[in-house]
């Protein structure tokens, strides 16, 4: 049971982290480099999922994506499929909740890169995409990696919104944090401790490895 929960948690968090990283870096880049009206407002609005209690965010997600939701209805009418109570719902919830972390971190990291290097790359005839991957991203890597780690941690621990949209179907959509919460509230302290230990253990290992990864190559 624990194993299944863990497997699901890892699946959900892996996909969510990848989605968040890709989309977050992209959006962070646009916010850092492009000027458009309402840019800072957009940035501010993007942090909302952090401010609202996850349950409330989850509630809004249902309103949007549920079987009778604004988008969910269209999807259901077309395919007969709905995202609620599926592990994909858990991925969506985790993604939405942790996304602001990535966008903010990526934007700040990209804005901190000395633009002269990007200019030098352009002058050498390199496209914006190539410059982004070979110059901007490596030079912003510290901040971006911090964002990835934060998003990972947040997504890994997410359960309020997840619970709402993915439901708690034992063995199907129950993630680790949910299991821990359940154990704590129902007074199964031993179980809770064990689960928490596993969860934090995994998180610590992942974060630790990422940290090592981002350590500057020692040069003198």
């Amino acid at each position: 049971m624990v194993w299944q929960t863990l497997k699901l948690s890892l699946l959900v968090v892996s996909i969510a982290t990848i989605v968040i990283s890709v989309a977050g870096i992209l959006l962070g880049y646009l916010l850092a480099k492009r000027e458009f009206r309402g840019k800072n407002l957009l940035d501010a609005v993007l942090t909302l999922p952090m401010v609202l209690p996850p349950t409330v965010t989850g509630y809004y997600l249902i309103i949007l994506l549920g079987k009778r939701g604004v988008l969910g209805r269209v999807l259901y009418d077309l395919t007969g499929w709905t995202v609620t109570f599926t592990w994909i719902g858990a991925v969506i919830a985790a993604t939405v909740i942790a996304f602001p972390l990535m966008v903010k971190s990526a934007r700040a990291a990209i804005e901190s890169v000395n633009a002269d290097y990007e200019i030098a790359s352009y002058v050498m005839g390199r496209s914006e995409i190539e410059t982004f991957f070979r110059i901007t991203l490596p030079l912003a890597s510290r901040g971006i990696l911090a964002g990835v780690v934060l998003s990972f941690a947040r997504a890994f621990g997410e359960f309020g919104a997840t619970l709402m949209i993915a439901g708690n179907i034992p063995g199907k959509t129950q993630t680790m944090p949910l299991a821990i919460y359940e154990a704590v509230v129902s007074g199964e302290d031993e179980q809770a401790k064990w689960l928490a230990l596993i969860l934090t253990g995994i998180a610590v290992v992942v974060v630790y490895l990422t940290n090592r990864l981002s350590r500057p190559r020692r040069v003198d």
Partner: protein
Amino acid sequence: MLKARFKKHLGRANSRALTIDVDLKAAQGITVLFGASGAGKTTILRAIAGILAPDEGRIVVGDEVYFDSAAGIVIPMQKRKVGYVFQNHLLFPHMTAEQNVLYGIRTGVRRNPRERARELLLMLGIEKTADRLPHQLSGGEQQRVALARALATDPSVMLLDEPLSAVDVSTRSRLLEEIVSIQRRSRIPFLYVTHNHSEALRLGDSMMVIEKGRVCQEGSPMEIFNAPRTASIAKVVGTENMFVGRILQHQFEDGTTIVGVDSCRIAAPLNALPVDSRVTIGIRSDDILVSLERLTQISARNVLEGVIKNIFIDVDKTELMVSCGIDLKVSVTRSAVRQLNLKIGSTVFLLIKARSVHLLE
């Protein structure tokens, strides 16, 4: 062929730092941009590369229009084929020297980019630094990597912003030859910014002096160094003797105009300024000859008697300060000092051809 004619205001509207207003043509060959610090040389290069959009004007390289405010054309920098050695190098800090150079090689242009990169590093004498990151390189090594990277780009126009300012004389001397030979082979215009006379002379097929954002004199480096058109150009190019005087008389038969500076009468080439106008004249210390006797059978129009007040001994020239009513710097060889037994206090005669006296605007 590069043609650039544009205006650009720098700084805030209320406190203009500088207005660039240039019209320059650079043919195939090396065109030196010479000018004091802050004259606007880097800004001109940046506009050509597209890093900075001029307020108005037109920039054409070959038959490609890079910028045309009238036609609304602004080719982005990625599309301009410009090689650029930045004044502050701008080596990518996360790439080794070799990777930096490789990055300069446009994808698909070379069959074996690594070989080309190695070749360039070797040519610039920094092959041993190939695997080092920029912060592990000395200043001169960084500069050479930047040069290699720019040379790697196979551009339509090459912009070099003081590319050898941080390397030693002997390396510089070798690299100057390499730069010339690369230019000759590539047959594209090189714009070369420098503060260094001998670089200008050795490289420059032509030269432009930039002053306060404008091209204020154009010609071959030798021409400009010999005959700077204004006092400030003279200062920039290093004409040592400059005086303010008044036109005393025109000697039409002689083809000379006599200029009075303090108590001295100096013959200059004939000009059309009214008598009594204030003029500035410049005399290069190198154009003055020293003699111990008052020579008369000589073509030099000016023979001034004076006393040596000081002797500056420098590795590549020895300079005398001679007082003859006005103080003149005179450049001599050390052997002449020995041969003529020149000492502080010696009386000497200075011979200056009229043609060596330049009227500055």
